[in-house]
């Protein structure tokens, strides 16, 4: 059951990205996706395998749901969020889009616990909220850096 739900969510977020009117170029979106992928892979490995703060299931299908969340759902949510805040340039809208994005990621964590995909050992939702907030800040500022890098080069030419 857990696998089916997370597979559906992965399908949903990827489809949403494909059909949405994108404000970021394909290169920008890929850069953010890959950067967040590298961070989520490393953070989840350190938190789960090294520090043993969270336990992940050993059941194959549920483990695949964990891999989907780590490698597809979380980075894609960040990419969609960044596209949306560039679409609605008002600061208040950007704030609420970010809050909604963090809330969705937290909800997915709750679902992971409900389906025994993850078990908190010495971890809680508060730490996750901080982690997701940092992920959003990293995505936002690294995108600004990436854009400046391209813009500076255009000006230099």
């Amino acid at each position, binding site marked *: 059951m857990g696998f089916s739900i997370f597979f559906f969510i992965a399908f949903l977020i990827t489809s949403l990205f494909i059909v949405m009117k994108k404000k970021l170029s394909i290169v920008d979106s890929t*850069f953010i996706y*890959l950067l967040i992928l590298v961070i989520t892979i490393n953070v989840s490995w*350190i938190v789960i395998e*090294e520090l043993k703060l969270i336990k992940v299931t050993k059941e194959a299908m549920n483990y695949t749901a964990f891999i989907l969340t780590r490698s597809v759902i979380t980075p894609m949510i960040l990419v969609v969020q960044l596209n949306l805040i560039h679409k609605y340039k008002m600061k208040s809208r950007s704030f609420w889009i970010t809050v909604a994005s963090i809330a969705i990621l937290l909800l997915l964590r709750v679902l992971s616990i409900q389906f025994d995909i993850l078990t908190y050992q010495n971890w809680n939702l508060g730490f996750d909220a901080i982690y997701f907030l940092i992920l959003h800040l990293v995505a936002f500022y690294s995108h600004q850096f990436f854009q400046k890098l391209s813009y500076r080069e255009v000006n230099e030419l």
Partner: protein
Amino acid sequence: MLWENFDKNEISILIMLILAFIVLGLLPKRFPRNITLLSLLWGLSSGMLFDFTIGGGLMDVYKVNDLQRYELFDLLYYLLFTPFSYFFIYFYDTLGINKKTFIWYVVGWSIVGLIVNWLLTWLDIIQFQNGYVLPYSFSVFLIIQTITGVYFELIKSRQLS
């Protein structure tokens, strides 16, 4: 942890990293900075995605360096992927790979990947376990390099349109 024993595998990683980045620096500039940065990140993320999905966790088919745990030289090993993804895209563009040559280019690079993979096992940088054998890596390289080539074509078509 930084490393268990500083010996053959650690020294080999350092030498390969230095050589790869020297070659990268010596190659004439071909792409805008954002594409260069993206191609470097592409290698790092695709290497990490496969290693942390099949190389560790539930499948755990190979061990990197001396320990099952994450050490500094594991990170340096992953950094080794960055110049190679750049080389793949660089020569893809330089050689003007098209629909007729795409398959040969991907197969050629996959064979190179397989040889490097063998070298990494010979240098004790990676050790296969749980039934994993070297030929399986060929499938991994075919997948990664096909996606890389197709993605590069997509970017080129978007930039031209």
